[in-house]
């Protein structure tokens, strides 16, 4: 797994960090929070896994609650951005959690969209209902997100499937995103075709352009 360590800083003795979870970060590194959302079964976890580990696991488990990934993206100018990806469960009952965080009104409790710099809203090209639900997800972002300039992209996953299994064509997805003035990608987590790397590279550049250094230092 890529991490956000920057070379140059003397590494700390590993005694207190036996499982190497902690990365020693310099101030120069920027962080961004990205949430992966969309209906159950559209391939959110597979997208994250393809991006982070460069592989496709056909034995993935359905996500319960949320799962977390991190990966460092390097830019041509030598700078880098560390993406923290919240891979969320698509199940409807988990969606019910978000507004609840607000209801409790404790500083401790926040919803998963809070302080997110970007959202990757996914559907599956094999499931036309998952495309229709994109609007529901976008509404949730508007309702619960707190960063006005949050970057949103629409992603149609499973582009590798046979024509006979496809329910949403490329054009349809493109048009859908266009009408909402959002960038559009079609990806395959199954194939190693670079579609997912391209998605996150573009997303990272966009984040870097849209947010100041300070904004990319904010906490979770």
């Amino acid at each position: 797994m890529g991490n956000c360590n920057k070379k140059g800083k003397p590494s700390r003795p590993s005694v207190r960090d036996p499982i190497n979870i902690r990365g020693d970060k310099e101030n120069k590194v920027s962080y961004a929070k990205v949430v992966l959302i969309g209906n159950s079964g559209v391939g959110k976890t597979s997208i994250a896994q393809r991006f982070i580990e460069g592989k496709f696991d056909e034995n993935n488990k359905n996500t319960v609650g949320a799962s977390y990934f991190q990966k460092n993206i390097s830019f041509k100018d030598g700078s880098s951005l560390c993406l923290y990806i919240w891979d969320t469960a698509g199940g409807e009952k988990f969606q019910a959690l978000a507004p609840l965080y607000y209801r409790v009104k404790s500083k401790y409790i926040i919803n998963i969209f809070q302080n997110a710099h970007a959202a990757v809203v996914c559907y599956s090209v094999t499931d036309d209902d998952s495309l229709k639900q994109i609007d529901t997800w976008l509404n949730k972002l508007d309702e619960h997100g707190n960063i006005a300039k949050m970057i949103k992209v629409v992603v149609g996953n499973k582009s590798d499937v046979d024509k006979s299994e496809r329910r949403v064509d490329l054009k349809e997805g493109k048009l859908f995103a266009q009408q909402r003035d959002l960038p559009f990608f079609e990806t395959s987590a199954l194939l190693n075709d670079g579609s997912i790397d391209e998605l996150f590279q573009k997303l990272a550049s966009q984040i870097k352009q849209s947010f100041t250094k300070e904004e990319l230092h904010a906490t979770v």
Partner: protein
Amino acid sequence: MEAQIQSIEAAAQHQQTSLIQSKINQLKNSQSLVPFSDEDFVMIQKEINSSLNVPIPEKKQDFKAFKSRVDQIQSKISNFSSNFIKRIFPFKKQQPIQQSDQVTQGQQGERQQSQHVKLDQNGFIFIDDYQNELSKLDWIQLYKMKKFAFTQDRELYPQVKYQVFQGLSSLPSQDRQAAWLLLLGIDTKSEQYRTYQELYYDFLCTQCERGSEQEYIENLIDKDIHRTFAEQKMFTEHPKSGRNRLFNLLKAYSLYDTDVGYMQGMNFIAWLVLKNFGEDDALAFAVFARILKINEWKRLYIQDTPKLFEMIPVIKSFLMKRLPKLDQKLTENQVPLEPLLAAPFITIFANLIEIEDAERALERFMLLGENYVIDTLKNMFTVHKEILMEMDAWDLQVFIGRKMFQASIENGTFFLSHTHHK
């Protein structure tokens, strides 16, 4: 001098009575010793709720015709676990164990308590002098002897606990099945069980209408079948073929308990149940349904998952009292515990650790209930407090949400000793 002795005796008696009273209260409040039915729960929950001020969510009424039928059948099943009351108040009047005056004294206190509760005389299982070697519990024999009230047997209970904590994975499958049935209080010879059986086959034959809510639920289940320990290649039939046992079980449950329907995470527990009940799907259904009754566990899977929002505060108050620095750090960094700790509760750790470990965890849960999960999480925060203190906001989430569990398994701190859980 005599007066002095008398006052000392009185004080000792008083102490004894209050000790027993506190034990009863502890039992009532822990809700953890035995699985029990909805009815039993409500009785205790009312008390707890009144102190915590937690609203019990109102039951949703859809699916009316079907529901009423299920309710009808469920009312037949409800006394399935009526002996829970007997477990809370372990001694009855006719119980002939009188080893010392103190015990008699104690029983009086308990008897007073139990007068408020109607006990089913017929179903009471009386345990006297059952003895066994610590290392060899004959689960099948215990099951045949219907030792469902083992928690009130002062000799048997420690042995059961010890065995469960040792792990039951080395047992032949029949023995392990008997152990589960005993832990869950399922008597396959009972009429109640036969009702479960009938119900299960009724559910299997139920076809959902197009566009119905049930169809929507079954589609959700369908999506998760191949995402449940898929590498084990166990339930590979097409979900809607009627031959996929995992799908069938979850479908049956969704019809049985329409408040729940289906929620992601239940699939992992159902899989573990089916793995251990290979031949008898109706029995697996009863086992699954019973597990979800432990401490009203099903309230994790209903709308708004109220149970999660009752259990997370327990962890939080533990952090506040015992690990104040870590608590402060989590607060400052706005680390949300609810989504991070959703999976360990909703799957009873099953999707976070290896299958063998998940089975062990599930068996401990059957024995100890929610306190097992809560104690395990508390311990994990304690064990990892130093490393957590060094993490930043981002890493805290990755660790608490995912890595902490396998890390605890690997450093041997995940499974606590049997003396740890009260």
